[in-house]
């Protein structure tokens, strides 16, 4: 069930995604992003005040096949920031998309950062 990890190709570019005001503190929102493989749905989590404030991870939940990850609860388990799928509650590490309940499943992740009040993503 593992999703492919996006190949790092030369065609990856930084693009603007949305603004800080679109984000929900300590929770997620979904956005569309253009990747070399085509359009993808991405979940953006915003953790103000944390060492890393922004994470971008696949919005697609491989266990339910629904696009819902942005609607999960954000938390930390043993010190690692995670999101729990809102459907069947598996946890995915925000850092690298690894599913904690199933070693063979890992979600795609992207680099994101603020430029002023804009949110940029490398995809």
């Amino acid at each position, binding site marked *: 069930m593992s999703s492919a990890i996006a190949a790092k190709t030369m065609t990856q570019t930084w693009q603007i*995604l*949305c603004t800080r005001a*679109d*984000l*929900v*503190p*300590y*929770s997620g*929102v*979904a*956005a*569309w992003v253009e990747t070399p493989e085509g359009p993808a*749905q991405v979940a*953006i989590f915003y*953790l103000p005040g*944390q*060492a890393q404030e922004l994470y971008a991870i696949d919005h*697609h939940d491989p266990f*339910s096949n*629904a*696009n*819902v990850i942005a*609607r*999960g*609860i*954000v*938390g*930390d*388990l*043993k*010190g*690692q*920031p*995670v999101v*729990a799928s*809102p*459907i069947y*509650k598996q*946890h995915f590490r925000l850092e690298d998309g690894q599913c904690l309940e199933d070693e063979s499943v890992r979600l795609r992740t992207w680099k994101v950062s603020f430029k002023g009040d804009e949110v940029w993503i490398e995809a």
Partner: protein
Amino acid sequence: MNTPAKPQLIVIGNGMVGHHMVERLVERGATEAFDILVFGEERHLAYDRVHLSDYFSGRDAQSLALCATDYYAEHGVQLRQREAVTAIHRDRQEVETPQGRYRYDRLVLATGSTPFVPPIPGNDRDNCLVYRTLDDLDAIRAAAASATTGVVVGGGLLGLEAANALRGLNLDTAVVEFAPRLMPMQVDNEGGELLREKIEALGVQVLTGRATQEIVDGEASRHRMVFQDEKVLETDLIVFSAGIRPRDELARDSGLEIGERGGVVIDDHCLTSDPTILAIGEVALWNNSIFGLVAPGYQMAKVAAATLLEGNEAFKGADMSTKLKLMGVDVGSIGDAHGDRTPGARQFRFLDPLKQQYRKLVVSSDGKRLVGAMLVGDNSYYDTLLQYYANRIELPEDPAALILPAGSEAAPALGPDALPETATICSCHNVTKADVCSAIDGGAVDLGAVKGATKASTGCGGCAALLKTLVDHELESRGVEVDKSICEHFAHTRQELYDIVRVEGIKTFSELMEKHGSKVGHSLGCDICKPAVASILASCFNEPITDAAHIPLQDTNDTFMANMQKNGTYSVVPRIAGGEITPDKLVVLGQVAQKYNLYTKVTGGQRIDLFGARLEDLPAIWGELIEAGFETGHAYGKSTRTVKSCVGSTWCRYGVQDSVGMAIQLENRYKGLRAPHKLKFAVSGCTRECAEAQSKDVGVIATENGWNLYVCGNGGMRPRHAELFATDLSDEELFRTIDRFLMFYIRTADRLQRTSIWRESLEGGLDYLKQVILEDSLGIGEELERQMQAVVDTYECEWANAISDPEKLKRFRSFVNDARPDPDIIYTTERGQLRPA
């Protein structure tokens, strides 16, 4: 790939014992060693025959089932229901059924027994039935519909149970017993006499010392039974319950060794005279005995599983002591209750003709050991006596004290300390005190965990009280610091967090984390503590859950105030208090559903659910609904759901109060209340109970004088009837009692604990709850009422709150950078409505 075929294990009979063996096999990984195929002649998956009679008092086949429907499939065990084995061909190692022949390497007979029908001419007439299977009970129920009288032939344990069932079906009931007294196996003449008095007082006629000669056409009723003395008894329906006979035909026909009076002969390893074949349960004859109880059957099942897996366990016989309640009458029998199997035994007896109690002790000739006991009328003595008997504990100086009424010089009940390590606690699963202790030492920290680890108390349930006492005692004596932390972020229970929030007036998760979090990692919390704290904050302060401080805490359903479906869409359930809705509002629901193309269904909670709404459509849908006067139904929250009602006195010819009016009042009072789990209510207008109030967390049933209140029921996975809590309450008393009850639940329950489970784990049980709520024993009654009133006063429809706030509405965009809907949500149609593809 070419995997060698596994040996074939065939089990004949999917009854209690056969099923138990399959479970033991699965547990021990036998599905790796065998292909297992089970034949069951009955229509139903193995069910709890011990509680068969509950079928007449409301339980259905499913709730009596011994496992989940998919248990067999899940563990790769093949189950062929409604397929009876008709022959065993030992020469070819095959069994035969009407559908085919199947080869076996090992075979287990678990065919149980059949009720014995005495060879009386006329015993095969219509409406002459037996009492063994669910189908038998269906037949009895059907026959009773056109009958006014019923007779049970046989006054033993099962006969009396059958008689009680007939009585429950509103038949004039009689019991005919061949022996001179009832329950001849368990009680003596004195006990039998007492039993007769008690049972006759219940309106059941008892005829002992009667042998039926024939059954012929009756004059006033369908049948006439003619006795040896020419006396006759007329009746419409007859149930035979004159003992059981092992179902050993298959074994007999295939030449296995059979006992003189029936039963497949087995050795200590449950092997029959053909070592490829085993027999267990009521069909098996061990040491010339048939065991007609489930506990010895379970022990055989365990031994047989070991034998099949080349383990070495032995069946060593079993104790036939029993404790029952027949038609409300306690009867207990331990060991050699008649004292006729122990040379030199001495007897002590106690008879109280007023209280109708009889107790007898049979003591060894040296007066040191208990060899048997008999109880009629009060079984509270049973547990202690059984321990003296089973564990050969030395009797006190004056054994008579053990059967004297409590309060006299009675010897105290045996404490858990007095039990030896080898004491059997649960005979169904053969669990000893040592097993319980080692489960605790192995990490089982509460009753549930001990049950899980040892299976104790998951059979007939008779040992539940003893097990709990023992577990509590053992935990205490180990000074167990039980870790009840809700999760890694807080070293507190939900109840402690609730108290902290209340006492310190903490209003946000971040404040709680800062002051009381266990400061691990990033302190973000997790999907356990965040929703739990969100619920506590809502119960205490009732701020909108979509406020910025609370929104990241909520489960997705609460975040979007709708239930997420499997394809990521949501359902919309407006409140329809008490199930009452005007035609105008009904039309609006239809229009909204049409406009947004929503699948529409009437729910089990008397309201209407609109499914398949896209996230981005939710605000518009709710806008239209609120416009038309609807408000949120909280179908998504752990909160008040519905108050179901019947039509009540306004329309119904039986109603004694306005149940709809009360349901609406209750729903409006408690709507929006968030709790550890969802809350369901119902109000019925009279005892016919059309609203099913007794299956709700809060059930209200109208009486001539007011309302009866029932609490802590639920349907769902493990149904539990609500218990009568208070009677004949006025409207005000009703509200006050429910206020206190619910707030006390919210204050003390664990996360996601329904009222039923909470009630079951409440120390002191229903009595304690009554003291706290009705007698205000803790002096918190007013405080609880005040807290509830605060929730009632701050109610606000959270959907109305959200759609008036553009910031909150931003949350309902599918994508922050694109208005495109999610293209992966695809529908198809079925029966004229859409559904997820």
